[in-house]
């Protein structure tokens, strides 16, 4: 099952201030800075363009309540929250994807594996079709559905500890059931309601406001450092559960901690934007290729996810004229095509 490329020799510079030792990889650092630069450009373009064009100084004024009349409302109430939601959701999903791909040691490992995405979809579709719920209620139903199915998968695969392989198989079974429930509900609903549900299932950051931004970023401030702190153990887990135990790692506890972190990140992202599926799969893979590391790196994956979602949302608003595509669609298109391009380049160079 170990589908990653083999271990690579340690590269980079090792710094040892006091008793800590930190390995700096110049390439990872450069990639991180480049991603930040791209993210800044995307952010600036998002804030300045749209139906109300503005210059950068005008937008900066508007952020502090000044600027030309009306612009402060456009920027502060609509464009900035939307941008922040896209960045936050992208970062959360990128990190969660990297965590799951590392735990399962599988490039297909994603929150999907433990049934989270399909569970949240079932929750939301039920809320839309049966309860005719409001937007906030749909988000809540989605998170409840996702967490319940993740818990079910974890408990069903528990047998004197959770073996990675059994977790995956049980996840497949639960996901299949939930998917068929969703398909059934969609095929029996009226066309209009099915379309509303379908739109939610795609995921979007359209019309998000500060009430989405605040909980999302508050959770990120707590969750991202926690997951990053556990990532050292993640590197050991990637050697396999047995080797990790031999190295003195209590793999069951770390696995549970990381799973919880990954699920929590996915949950806040889903509550804010719906299930935007492909980021969790693509961002770690793209980041691993940019950094040239055999395993999905967490921080670059978070940045890649943020760039991917913010950039794709911008593309969806601008490229097709009056037609506005939801971020879920454009993200899959942009991410998919970029990943295909990366693979094509590897293929030509024979890496």
């Amino acid at each position, binding site marked *: 099952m170990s589908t990653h490329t083999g271990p690579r020799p340690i590269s980079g510079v090792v710094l040892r201030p006091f008793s800590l030792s930190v390995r700096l990889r110049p390439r990872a650092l450069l990639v991180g800075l480049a991603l930040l630069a791209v993210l800044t450009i995307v952010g600036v373009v998002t804030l300045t363009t749209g139906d109300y064009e503005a210059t950068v100084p005008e937008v900066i004024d508007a952020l502090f309540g000044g600027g030309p009349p009306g612009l402060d409302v456009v920027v502060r109430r609509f464009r900035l929250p939307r941008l922040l939601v896209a960045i936050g959701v992208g970062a959360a999903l990128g990190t969660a994807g990297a965590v799951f791909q590392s735990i399962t040691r599988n*490039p297909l490992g994603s929150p999907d594996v433990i049934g989270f995405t399909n569970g949240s979809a079932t929750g939301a579709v039920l809320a839309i079709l049966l309860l005719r719920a409001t937007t906030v209620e749909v988000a809540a139903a989605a998170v409840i559905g996702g967490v319940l199915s993740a818990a079910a998968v974890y408990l069903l695969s528990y047998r004197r500890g959770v073996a990675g392989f059994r977790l*995956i198989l049980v996840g497949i079974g639960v996901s299949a059931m939930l998917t068929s429930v969703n398909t059934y509900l969609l095929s029996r609903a009226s066309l209009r309601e099915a379309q509303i549900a379908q739109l939610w299932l795609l995921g979007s950051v359209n019309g998000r406001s500060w009430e989405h931004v605040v909980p999302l970023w508050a959770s990120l401030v707590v969750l991202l450092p926690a997951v990053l702190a556990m990532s050292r153990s993640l590197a050991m887990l990637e050697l396999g559960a047995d080797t990790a135990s031999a190295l003195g790692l209590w793999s069951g506890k770390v696995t549970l901690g990381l799973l919880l972190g990954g699920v929590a990140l996915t949950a806040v992202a889903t509550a804010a934007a719906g299930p935007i599926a492909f980021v969790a*799969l693509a961002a770690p893979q793209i980041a691993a290729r940019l950094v040239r590391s055999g395993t999905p790196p967490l921080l670059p994956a978070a940045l890649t996810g943020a760039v991917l979602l913010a950039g794709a949302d911008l593309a969806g608003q601008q490229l097709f004229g009056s037609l506005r595509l939801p971020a879920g669609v454009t993200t899959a298109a942009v991410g998919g*095509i970029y990943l*295909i391009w990366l693979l094509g380049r590897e293929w030509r160079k024979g890496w």
Partner: protein
Amino acid sequence: MTGTKVATARAAPRRLLGLAAAVLVLAALFAVSLAVGARHIDATTVWQALGHDDGSDDAYIVRALRLPRGILAVLVGAALGLAGALMQALTRNPLADPGLMGVEIGASTAIVTGIAFFGVTAPSGYVWFAFAGALAASVIVYTLGASGRAATPERIVVAGAAVSAALGAFISAVLLLNGQAFDRFRFWVVGSLANRGFDVLWQLAPFILTGAVLALLLGRGLNVLALGEDTGRALGARAGHVRLAGALAVTLLCGAATAAAGPIGFVGLTVPHVARMITGPDNAWVLPYSAVLAPILVLGADVLGRVVVAPGELEVGIVMALVGAPVFIALCRRTRIAQL
């Protein structure tokens, strides 16, 4: 090496017996599928109707509706089971389903295009669109992921996922803008065996049979591939040839099955795991077991779907996951799982 050979030789008669038992179960289920449905027909009438067409309603139902439907269920099931086992062996990934070769998403893309831009409306018109789309998408995935010097199992997986996402985005966008297309597509995507006559069967059976023969011949090659690229090469396996033949078989099998019944995901993903629980990781046994166990699941789900809400009907794709998944989970909890 000799030790394993002896062990295999000892296990072989038992595995052959198990396979024969599974075939018998399938045959019994097939007989039941001719008799059961919205209108119950007793065994003697079914037998007479199969012998000659006496022009009665019962004879029509058995000969023109249930017989092709049963055969199609068996073929589709065998195709998906084999394609799943092949795909998991080729990618050495337990999460790989036949759809990962791009086949199902290619078929879906072609059908959405057909419905939205070419005004195709009848399921019989979907077949060739689906098959062409499946072929095109799998060629792209194979070229990106499985050809060239750098081909590894992981690359096929990532390539399949990337192509699926890009095409999936196209499908979503079209369906979002075209409500009518969405309305037709949501019924195709459920996966169903209803209302496919002998014509669909004759169109697709040759592809499935060719793919099945190819797949069953690949067992040993896949075993060597499973030892890893380098060991495989040292033992004289031509990894590239096995991969190409495997990808071709997956495309034929899964493309034809998807064209006939729509994308049915669950079978290809889970049945090979069940087969592996019975036989161990030897692909020479996993493949034939998958080819017999999968039709049992598909045909059983189809019969059940006709019975539970009679005179209405639940689509086979839905019943299969709802009934099959709990069984699968229970098996995962009980059995020592043979890893890939």
